[in-house]
């Protein structure tokens, strides 16, 4: 299949496959960060990516979103080959993401952060912006209302006019998710959304992830906390040294000897 990257692939919106990776490899010089990984994500599921530190999870995210160029292999999103597309094009097609280290626009209000997510769907041209045409005004109003709605959805509407950098950590995580949702994605990539959160915040975040899924958005999740992953995921893919070592339902993965070995070492 990888031999014909532009050919018709078996995944199309109709058969419920949202994202399909085919033998994707990413090398940095001599280091193979992602090694020949293939998997499929079905519409509406929460698909988790786990593995020890340095297993290549974030590299895989960066490859899917176009931040890195794949060394080989193809990535197909909703029936369209997106291998090698620029990040903003990938985002425009409907893949949104958050970052492991939160990357908000620090000196912009929470509301404006979300509005940036809506940028690519806005139609105001340079002319409209310069002269504040009725069309631009109307669009601004719509975008503002939509952004407020998203702030409510993630539960931080009282922070609308605060600078992103002044928000508490947990709220920043939520804001990042809201900004990702503003791009109107079909697939949301979350890179350790619960990192650094206390147990209660983790529960709330996972409840938020469930609600996002409830909106019909498919979720690809990287998470270290096994309790969280096992509780929320429909399927799990385990990476180790860039290689796929297991895939399946949480229960299957939990008892897989290779997974236990990867996490605890051989002698254990």
């Amino acid at each position, binding site marked *: 299949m990888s031999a014909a990257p532009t050919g018709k692939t078996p995944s199309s919106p109709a058969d419920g496959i949202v994202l399909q990776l085919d033998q994707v490899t990413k090398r940095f010089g001599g280091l193979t960060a992602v090694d020949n990984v293939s998997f499929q994500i079905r519409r509406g599921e929460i698909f988790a990516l786990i593995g020890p530190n340095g297993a290549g999870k974030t590299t895989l995210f960066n490859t899917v979103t176009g931040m890195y160029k794949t060394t080989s292999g193809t990535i197909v999103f909703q029936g369209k080959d997106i291998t090698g597309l620029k990040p*903003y094009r990938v*985002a425009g097609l409907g893949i949104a993401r958050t970052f492991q280290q939160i*990357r908000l626009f620090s000196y912009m209000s929470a509301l404006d952060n979300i509005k940036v997510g809506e*940028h690519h769907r806005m139609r105001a041209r340079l002319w409209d912006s310069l002269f504040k045409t009725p069309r631009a005004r109307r669009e601004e109003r719509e975008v503002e209302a939509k952004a407020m709605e998203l702030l409510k959805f993630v539960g931080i509407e009282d922070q609308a006019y605060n600078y992103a950098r002044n928000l508490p950590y947990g709220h920043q995580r939520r804001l990042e998710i809201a900004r990702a949702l503003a791009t109107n994605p079909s697939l949301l990539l979350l890179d350790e959304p619960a990192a650094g959160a206390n147990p209660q915040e983790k529960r709330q975040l996972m409840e938020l992830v469930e609600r996002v899924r409830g909106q019909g958005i498919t979720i690809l999740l990287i998470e270290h906390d096994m309790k969280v992953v096992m509780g929320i995921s429909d399927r799990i893919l385990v990476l180790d040294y860039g290689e796929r070592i297991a895939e399946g339902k949480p229960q299957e993965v939990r008892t897989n000897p290779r997974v236990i070995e990867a996490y605890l070492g051989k002698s254990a």
Partner: protein
Amino acid sequence: MRWASGWFQSRNRTIYTLLIIGALLYPSLMDIVTGGEGNHWIGTAAFAGVFVLLAIGLNTVVGFAGLLDLGYAAFFAIGAYTYGMFASGQLLASPLHHEFHIPFWVMLLVGVFVAACFGIILGAPTLRLRGDYLAIVTLGFGEIVPRLVQYLGAGSPIGNWTGGVNGIAAIDPPKLPIILTGPWFGLGTPFGVVKNFDFFNPLAYPLDFYWLMAILIVVCIVLATNLQNSRIGRAWMAVREDEVAAAASGVNTVAIKLTAFAIGASFAGFAGAFYGAQLSLVSSDNFEFIVSVTILIMVVLGGMGNIPGVIVGALLIYTTQYVVLTNLPDWTTSLATAVGLTGLNQAHGDWVGLHDEVQRLNYLIFGVILVAVMVLRPQGLFPSRVREQELEKGTEEQAVFDLRAEET
């Protein structure tokens, strides 16, 4: 926070109100102060307005989009030369053998367009660079344009296009088919209608340039403010804050930076056309590196990212550099005479005389003033909310936070 933003807006409104009142009263005030000889100062104010336009333009590039442009004067030159070449006898000497006298009002827009095109030509290959590298490339561009303009004079292999080191003189002034005269052209001016009005008409000069400049500045403020609060302004800020996150949020970062460059350049083209018209002369000397630096200083010192702050910065720096420092040697000489130290004014031995000595120290004095302002107010005089927070609280807050985290 809403309160803070309200305070911020009301401060900007106060600055704008004072600027408008100042601009309206300035001509009469100058006439009164100088006893009817205010024309020189009114003309100077119109030139200061050119720098206000330039500062507003550079602010979109540096303040909004966060791209350091060290060659901004090049776009200013392009605007001025575009007007100069097509509104004077210059091109008669060129291989075209034909002189053009296209009206100022048309050339104002052509200047904008040509400068924007050059902004795109420079930006397209270079905006993939970040930070320091971009600064170096723009610095080079700022050096190339005046050099090229000097070279394309008499004797160049492709003909005399720019007048070379002599520049272009006798550039057409703006003209209007009809104009209403009245007290706005000086208190004693009677009401009346002048046909085929020329901006160098002694009846109205230099107040006509002054009012024209005021109108242009108002237009530019409105346009720049609209942009700042639009989809594009937001994308500029997003790119400034975090380019990777902006791209992941669906912003075409290269295109949006190119827009910033082109818009910034077009303000300079606008200012350049006016400058050529009022001075009726363009010469490459007026667009050297020091001009780029001066405009950048206006932006940084006034308050990067905040349009009224940048305007105040432009006016203050212009006054300091072209009024105070230029006249300082004369002022000190008269002061010395007045207090009876005439001996200081004569040169003897190693002493070159007070006048020349002060002239030598001009840039030193300017430098000391700049350093003093930046030490006392690193965020600029009237900064945007962003810079204010960044420089007043930024690092301290984080340090405290980290310490607490260590303790628990």
